């Protein structure tokens, strides 16, 4: 009997479901999202998927070997500021950690103007106000030694007073708890005893990392989204059980894999940003099938442009993230975003006669001028219409009619003010956005020791394939893949379905050379034991587990840490010399030749175990037959399109991408329409449908 891997992604508008069978065949189903009770939309989408497979929902549920789901409940709670009322218990004297915010204003990732023009640079509203923070006498030092015993009388009074204040969740974070969690766990247990229904998070259980600001922020954020996420997931889990699903529900997490629903309820922080991360996971999966281990993933939507990097098959990681200016620890697939999307607003500075694009966005409302929803300021999408990249009558599969004259009028007005022609101006708008995109990719590749020319670029999102031909060319990338067919529009659900079960365990033990091998081994042994226990809880036996060991290291006295693999190193033998060499190699790869300082002592900081279990699913199957002959139905005739390269219009062929057969190849200038977007094939570039059903754009330079 066939078994199925199912991924479900709930978006603001649609809920996407992807079913992969054990032959690697992919079925997708979309249904409307159901705000208020998102679980319903998910069940609808799965039922629709069953219908497409000719099964009853019950029969499908029975045969699902893994159901993976990405949830945005936590993200939405933060965006809409609808999280729980949180109380925080911390080390006495250190109540203000999350208010001081390290004396910065949460500036990471903000536009430089918002950072340096102080009236625009306020701190965010604190997640926990000072009056809901209680300090308790207890103290541990940098060796993990207890300097002050936990004062349980104070702790009890603190818990009680927060209960009396009506908090819905409790966060506990003490200094140095990642070295010695006893006090945190004691307070946690006391709180559970005193208020069994209170949602309680303690930092040592969540992110046992060095640095109290980012650790406390993680803990309070987790508490903030805990009750609402746990409520949603437990209801969903019960409902799926009642429908006949028997395996543990898996939830996608920002580390790129999945965790069990029970763990997600305890650590909902891991679900933040898991949607975009699934896009990277899906890319890595596709990349494995297509044997392209180095991938730049780009997702250009309406408001932002998100970039991820996969190198040697492994997504690049970051260990500090931020949301609403709060910076917090979490091991996460690194995705950087800039405010450059289809909806990015175009502005003119009269005095300096210059043109600016973004970072502000028109969003879905009022949206671009051509959407006719009240938008008056032109956007990148309006430029795309003016240039002829988008077909006003056939946008998004004809679901939205675009008002081209309105877009022309809006951009024409700007062009006139700048003394440019309409099309020069529209082409300039696209170019400015494209160069900004090239810049962020350059920062994430060149800035981190990667050469973009060694990478294939994946372009997804509604607006990405329109512009990938230019920003990829800027970077020297040779090949762009536009994931196609069913997978493109349901990319994140596809990523969810292709995600592995993954646990990432961190353990901080700061150790300077010469290293004590016993301490290293004992750290690793304990972490491995814990990782195996967690996998067993997920029903995965030891044989199927893959363990990757690494350690974050640095020069003593310096700040920059790099993650160095411990795999294949004999930790029982004399590992110091080879580990040093690994560190120097990695450091110089990241920071440039000659940057490592061989005279300095080295420090180990954080040990890490990535424990994963690849879901035993068959790979994607390439098509056996490739065809040279483009079906006649694919050719939709010609349209006048403006090309910056030619500084002129060219009659360009318009194709229906859905009619392409694997092996079909066309050359630019051309536009290939797909149900969700259009691929712009620039003069000199060629596009083909590969054996996997994806469009492959060759830049040919």
């Amino acid at each position, binding site marked *: 009997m066939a078994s199925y891997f199912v991924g479900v992604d709930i978006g603001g508008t649609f809920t996407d479901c992807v079913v992969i069978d054990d032959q690697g065949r992919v079925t997708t189903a979309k249904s409307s999202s159901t705000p208020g009770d998102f679980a319903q939309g998910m069940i609808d989408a799965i039922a629709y998927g069953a219908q497409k497979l000719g099964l009853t929902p019950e029969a499908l549920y029975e045969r699902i070997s893994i159901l993976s789901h990405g949830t945005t409940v936590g993200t939405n709670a933060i965006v809409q500021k609808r999280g729980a009322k949180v109380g925080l218990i911390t*080390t*006495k*004297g*250190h109540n203000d950690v999350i*208010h*001081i*915010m*390290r*004396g*910065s*204003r949460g*500036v990471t990732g903000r536009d*430089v*103007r918002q950072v*340096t023009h*102080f*009236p625009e*640079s*306020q*701190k965010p509203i604190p997640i926990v*106000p*000072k*009056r809901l923070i209680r300090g308790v*006498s*207890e*103290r541990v*030092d*940098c*060796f993990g030694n207890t*300097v002050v*015993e936990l*004062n349980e009388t104070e702790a009890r009074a603190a818990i009680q007073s927060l209960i009396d204040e009506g908090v819905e969740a409790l966060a506990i974070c003490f*200094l*140095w708890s990642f070295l010695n969690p006893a006090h945190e766990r004691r307070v946690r247990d006391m709180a559970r005893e005193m208020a069994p229904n209170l949602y309680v998070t303690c930092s040592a259980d969540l992110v046992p990392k*060095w*640095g*109290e600001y980012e650790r406390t922020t993680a803990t309070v954020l987790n508490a903030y989204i805990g009750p609402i996420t746990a409520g949603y997931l437990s209801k969903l889990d019960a409902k799926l059980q009642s429908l006949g699903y028997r395996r543990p529900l898996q939830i996608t997490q920002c580390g790129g894999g999945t965790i069990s629903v029970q763990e997600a309820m305890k650590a909902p922080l891991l679900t933040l940003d898991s949607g975009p991360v699934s896009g990277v996971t899906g890319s890595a999966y596709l990349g494995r099938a297509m044997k392209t281990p180095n991938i730049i993933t780009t997702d250009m939507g309406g408001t932002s442009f998100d970039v991820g990097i996969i190198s040697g098959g492994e997504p690049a990681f970051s260990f500090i993230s931020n949301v609403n200016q709060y910076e917090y620890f979490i091991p996460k697939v690194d995705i950087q975003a800039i405010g450059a999307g289809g909806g990015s607003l175009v502005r003119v500075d009269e*005095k*300096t006669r*210059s043109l600016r*694009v973004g970072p502000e966005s028109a969003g879905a409302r009022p949206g671009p001028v051509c959407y006719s929803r009240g938008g008056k300021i032109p956007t990148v999408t309006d430029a795309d219409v003016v240039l002829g990249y988008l077909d006003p009558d056939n946008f998004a599969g004809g679901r939205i009619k675009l008002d081209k004259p309105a877009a022309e009028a809006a951009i024409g007005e700007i062009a006139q003010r*700048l003394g*440019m022609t309409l099309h020069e101006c529209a*082409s*300039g708008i696209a170019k*400015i956005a494209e*160069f*900004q995109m090239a*810049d962020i990719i350059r920062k994430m590749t060149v*800035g981190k020791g990667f050469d973009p020319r060694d990478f294939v670029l994946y372009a997804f999102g509604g607006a990405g394939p329109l512009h990938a031909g230019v920003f990829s060319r800027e970077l020297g990338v040779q090949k762009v893949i536009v994931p196609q067919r069913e997978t493109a529009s349901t990319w994140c659900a596809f990523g969810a379905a292709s995600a592995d079960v993954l646990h990432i365990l961190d353990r901080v033990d700061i150790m*300077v050379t010469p290293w004590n091998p016993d301490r290293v081994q004992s750290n690793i042994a304990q972490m491995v034991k814990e990782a195996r226990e967690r996998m067993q809880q997920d029903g995965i036996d030891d044989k199927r587990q893959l363990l990757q060991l690494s350690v974050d290291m*640095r020069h003593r006295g*310096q*700040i*920059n840490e790099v993650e160095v693999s411990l795999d294949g190193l004999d930790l029982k033998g004399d590992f110091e010399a080879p580990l040093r060499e690994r560190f120097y190699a990695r450091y110089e790869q990241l920071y*440039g030749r000659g*940057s490592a*300082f061989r*005279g*300095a002592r080295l420090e180990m900081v954080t040990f890490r175990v990535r424990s994963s279990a690849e879901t035993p699913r068959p790979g994607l199957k390439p098509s056996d037959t490739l065809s040279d002959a483009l079906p006649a139905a694919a050719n939709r005739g010609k349209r006048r399109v403006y090309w910056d390269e030619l500084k002129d219009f060219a009659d360009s062929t318009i194709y229906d991408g859905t009619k392409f057969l694997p092996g079909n190849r066309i050359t630019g200038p051309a536009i290939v329409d797909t149900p969700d977007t259009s691929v712009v094939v620039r003069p000199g570039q060629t596009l083909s449908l590969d054996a996997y059903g994806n469009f492959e754009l060759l830049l040919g330079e």
Partner: protein
Amino acid sequence: MTKMNDLQGVIFDGVNQPYVPPKHLRISPKLKLHRDAVTDIDPVTFEVIRHNLWNVNEEHGATIQRISGSPVAMYALDLNPSILTEDAEFVYFGPYMQYMSGVTDTQVKWILENRSDNPGIKPGDMFLANDPWVGAAHQMDVMLICPVFWEGELFCWVTNCLHQYDIGGITPGSFCPSATSAFDEGILIPPVKIIENDEIRRDIEELYLRSSRKPDMVALDFRAQLAGNTAARERILQLIRRYGASVVKGVMRRILDNGEQMFIDKLSRLPEGTWRDRTYIECCRPGDRGTYPVVVTLHKRGNTLIFENEGTAPQQGAMNATYSGWRGSIMVAINQLLCWDQYFAVGGALRHVEFNPTPGTLNCASFPASVSTAPTQAMEISLYPAYNVLSKMMYADPEMRGDVMCIGGTSQWPTTIFRGIDQWGERYGYLLIDPIGGAIGAFSGADGISTGGQSRTPICRLPNIEHTEQSFPLLFLYRKEVTDSGGPGKFRGGLSAESCFIPHNTDRIVQDTLSSGNAVPTSTGMMGGYPGSVNVYRFRRATDILKRLKSSDMIEAIADVKGTDVTLGLRQENFEQNPDDVYSVIWSAAGGFGDPMERAPQSVFDDWQNLAVSVEAARDIYGVAIDARTGALDEAATAKLRAAKREARVKKAGRKVSTLKGELAFLATENLGVRREAGTMHYCCAKCATDLGAVAGNYKENCLREDNTILHAVPLSGDPQRYIDAHPEFRQFFCPGCGTLIENEVALTGEPLLRDLEVTGDALAAVGRAS
């Protein structure tokens, strides 16, 4: 003492007197400058190249941070990259330590004048420099300056500056609080060619490193600086190869021209006049009880701004800065308040800014004054009051009013230098970075930002306590925001914080202090706003802290432990802290804006709930009644309290006032209007139009004046006589007609009134037209 422009026969060449570039640089004909610039560049090409140039600078800074990795570079961000045109006008400078770029252009100009002939400026060269009389802020800020050549012509410059751990001098770390002259301080290096033909000159590098106690660290940082310049130079050459040199140069010129045009446009909307501020530095050498005035005067004449420091004390002891430090500091304020919308392209604005200091003063010191502590004292005090004078000038324009910002926290840096044997058995020495957490001053329409950092380093970051405790043998008892520290006002200044620690896992630590602004507040408020808290050192010896830790009874304030208080001097050297001695430091907070009695009662109540303001301050300063027992805001009692306070002031003034009927020309400050009255211009209360005299006079003389001790404004300051002989006082100026607080002034008893603004009549018509 004579102003620079009035001095005859003095050479400002960077030897005994600071280098001041002439209008026309004397450059050797051996050096060919690239002058060709296209003027007609389409807006798209302009934006693409502009964006790229900005990014070159960002990447440049990131490269230095990555390779250096030092806590100085990573937390304090004590570095900054710049791009300058071939003749050393700023194109861009980075968002890191703003002082550093402010001192760049003079150094490049000096190199053009003094190195273009011998040894020559050639492709593949870079110059190392740290001489404060040529242009560094202080000796530790070492600059690496790189010419970028295209086809044999000097196209532009990329430079960076990075604070070094130690480059010599009598004190480890090269901050020398007891130095008597520059000869006690780190090595002085006028620009020398350290990179020649893209190779490090070993002889020069060894000379550079020889004086340092940490030569390895300095060598690594030098490589970081080298990599930064190399990367930036390569990116600019790529731009030239792609777009052409004359196009890239055209973009640079236009960035400057745009910046200039925006600056002139802004000035044209403002009244003519003079704005002035006066603050004080305390303690210029160990044991000193002196107080040294620092005055900044801003004249606006047409489309030109002129800055002077007349009235500032002569150079003395170890508190000084050079001309470039003073000028660079003022540039930070100009850049942030007036050039933020041009991405800080201050080069264009500088074409219309003149600097006319008085040589021999403490912030325009002549060689060989001690200047190693400049950035913590003389430069901070040159910078922050510049925010005040610029803000007051800008206030007249309703749109620019939104950019007004009061003085922020750490307006003098309360330094904690400590050393000893750490918990790992190794020798260490360090400077507590915590005061970088600062506070941001109030705005004209919003509160300042509590512990929002220092405005001169917009992206700085405080280390986590866990990071500091890992590296040094300390146990922090607390680090907390300080209630009532933010300067009261209609909009409150940001709160600062206090760090308190004991030695831990060591026998003792040895400390030095180095501070000012502990007796006289330096974060003065504006337009009725009060000053933020002063710096406070507290030291309690032989306390019961260890016993309390043992019995699980921790403290939240140093006052909670029993022990003997010791008053630390402001430049006290080599005092020991034992494990039961408790040390704490509060860094100064930010100034407030506007009359505190005009603050919305609900905001004061929220501040109380958020521990920003005490019940007492709410009542005494804000006139807001909060019942601490019920935790409720009493609106009726508040209204009564406020009315009574105002009435009492009016009664005290007891004078018959006349009210102006003429047309309001503009608002000079929040509570001070200027009206046309019978052919002359008069100041008046902005609330009730009470006449405050003709603009030719000082409006303060027509206000009700009330003098109090400084404790009245800053209760946290304690007795100023612990540190200084002079008596600081808090002068308040109320409208005699309605009791509104118009302005405050911090001054030493006996000093004349500060004339903080003088608008001159002749340009008012222009302003009238503009509004």
